């Protein structure tokens, strides 16, 4: 259970076409992440799948059945909203019980599932509180609990961690991944944070302006981005994209090299530049280098203890096997 297929799905708000025809298959049990810049239509796509928004044309199949015109409740999907959307006047217990109550499940089974979910999510001590009396992370867990107890065929998450602080976000990221490993249910997860996408996904769908730029596993996207947009979007810090004469040497319009695939030396190398800002993270140092034609600044990842100062001259050598080449149309040349 939990295969979702979109065939030629489009969505327009009035005259504005937000999603041009789009095909996508999400396999059973897969953790799929939609990433893309703000306003690219990630939430819209998720809401189309959930049934909260009507599609303009096309077809959505869930588990092989046409679900295009099914109301949200009948699709067997559970959604976790960015604002959590907990019911403020109900206790945590009642919040979690709500979907089961609506389904008319018997009390004993409800209690069993609530207790199991509360235990798994560390909410046992908070079951009688109101959402207003919980921290952001706890509210997030209640929202997840409310989704779990329904035992849906797929979970939909819309930027569930964006309201949490950095440390908590890392923790919740692990918890959600863990949950996916345990439940093995299909999950669709929307984020604009490529680190979340890389760390959690089985499959990443990169979107731009409603168009799917590339679909693949995190490492596929990292190793072989299909075009310049994906190359720049996946990976942190961003890939350096170099145009002009340097690129022409490689018979390409643009060449791309990731900061971690550049060797730094103070004595010799292919390209020469001067050090700008160096960001010391302890484990790594990201150095911004100026003066290299076609890309300013160029970012380089060096070891944690590199001794370079502002204004120093350094030499860089790209690792040729990691060089990406793109044509004038932005597509990858292999």
């Amino acid at each position, binding site marked *: 259970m939990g295969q979702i297929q979109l065939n030629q799905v489009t969505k327009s708000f009035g005259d504005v076409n937000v999603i041009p025809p789009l095909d996508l298959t999400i396999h059973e049990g897969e953790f799929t992440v939609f990433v893309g810049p703000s306003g690219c239509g990630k939430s819209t796509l998720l809401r189309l799948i959930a049934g909260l928004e009507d599609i303009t044309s096309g077809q959505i199949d869930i588990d092989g059945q046409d679900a295009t015109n099914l*109301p*949200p409740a009948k699709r067997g999907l559970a959604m976790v909203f960015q604002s959590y959307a907990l*019911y*403020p*006047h109900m206790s945590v217990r009642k919040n979690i019980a709500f979907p089961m109550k609506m389904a008319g499940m018997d009390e004993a089974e409800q209690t069993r599932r609530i207790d199991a979910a509360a235990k798994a999510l560390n909410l046992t001590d908070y079951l009688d509180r109101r959402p207003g009396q919980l921290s952001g992370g706890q509210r997030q867990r209640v929202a997840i609990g409310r989704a779990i107890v329904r035992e849906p065929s797929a979970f939909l998450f819309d930027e569930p961690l964006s309201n949490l602080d950095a440390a908590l976000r890392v923790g919740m990221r692990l918890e959600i991944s863990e949950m996916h490993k345990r439940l093995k249910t299909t999950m669709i997860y929307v984020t604009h944070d490529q680190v979340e996408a890389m760390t959690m996904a089985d499959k990443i769908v990169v979107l731009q302006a409603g168009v799917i730029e590339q679909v693949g596993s995190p490492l596929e996207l990292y190793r072989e981005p299909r075009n310049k947009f994906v190359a720049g979007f996946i990976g942190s810090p961003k890939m350096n994209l170099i145009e002009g004469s340097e690129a022409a040497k490689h018979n390409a319009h643009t060449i791309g090299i990731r900061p971690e695939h550049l060797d730094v030396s103070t004595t010799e190398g292919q390209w020469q530049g001067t050090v700008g800002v160096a960001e010391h993270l302890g484990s790594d140092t990201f150095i911004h280098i100026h003066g290299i034609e076609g890309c300013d600044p160029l970012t380089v990842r060096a070891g944690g203890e590199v001794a370079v100062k502002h204004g120093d001259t350094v030499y860089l050598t790209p690792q040729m096997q990691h060089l990406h080449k793109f044509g004038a149309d932005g597509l990858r040349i292999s």
Partner: protein
Amino acid sequence: MATQHSRSAARMMMAPAVILLLGWMLVPLIMTLYFSFKKYLPLRGGDLGWAGFDNYVRFVTSSAFWPSVQATLVIVGGTLLITVVFGVLLGILLNQPMWGQGVVRILVIAPFFVMPTVSALVWKNMFMDPVNGLFAHLWKFFGAQPVEWLSDASMFSIITIVSWQWLPFATLILLTAIQSLDGEQLEASEMDGAPVLKRFYYIILPHLSRAITIVILIETIFLLSIFAEIFVTTGGAFGSRTLTYLIFQRVLESQNVGLGSAGGVYAIILANIVAIFLMRIVGKNLDA
């Protein structure tokens, strides 16, 4: 220090307003209490000395007292019920995106700007008149005998008129409350499998509880002392004599200021009983 200084300065500057308000409240209250213990008949000898609790005893033992309390409560209760129920429904309706929303909202609010006397007269003469009223014409059109609204169904008519005046107030407050409901909550409940009516019952209604409380409290304050609508329509006849109206009759029609003042004190007591009662039932919504 500066704060101490500014605090006393603030007190000084607030004093005139506070004293004025206090006097405004206390002078009539003390006068009412004073007269309630007097035998005071302006046209029949004026001040005839102290009366002890005579006025109080006479006022409650009069056969008109309990029916007037009942009439007051029925009008307040009926109007509250109608305005809250229809206020919620209208609020939801007006919250839907529709053509001409702005105009419709203004139209719905308009009755609130009409003076009570005027609206009661309009209802009495243009709708409820058994010969020329619109309702009479409607009834005749269907071949029925026109109803003499203000005498045969006086309470119902008055409640209708008062509700018509107060519905805009309730609608306005409830509409703003509905607008503040987070749309994602409704979507979440939709995904959780709640059909329309259950969404209303489990999500919208609890969200509105505080606004409903406020509507009930404010309306009660004003409705307990309702007068003009009764004066203009039934003149207190046909069982529509409220406590306020009874006091009016005692003071101005029977020219018995002492008796009326005692009634006024009872009205204060009744208002407080109702207030405590309401606070018990609905007031806890305000704490949450």
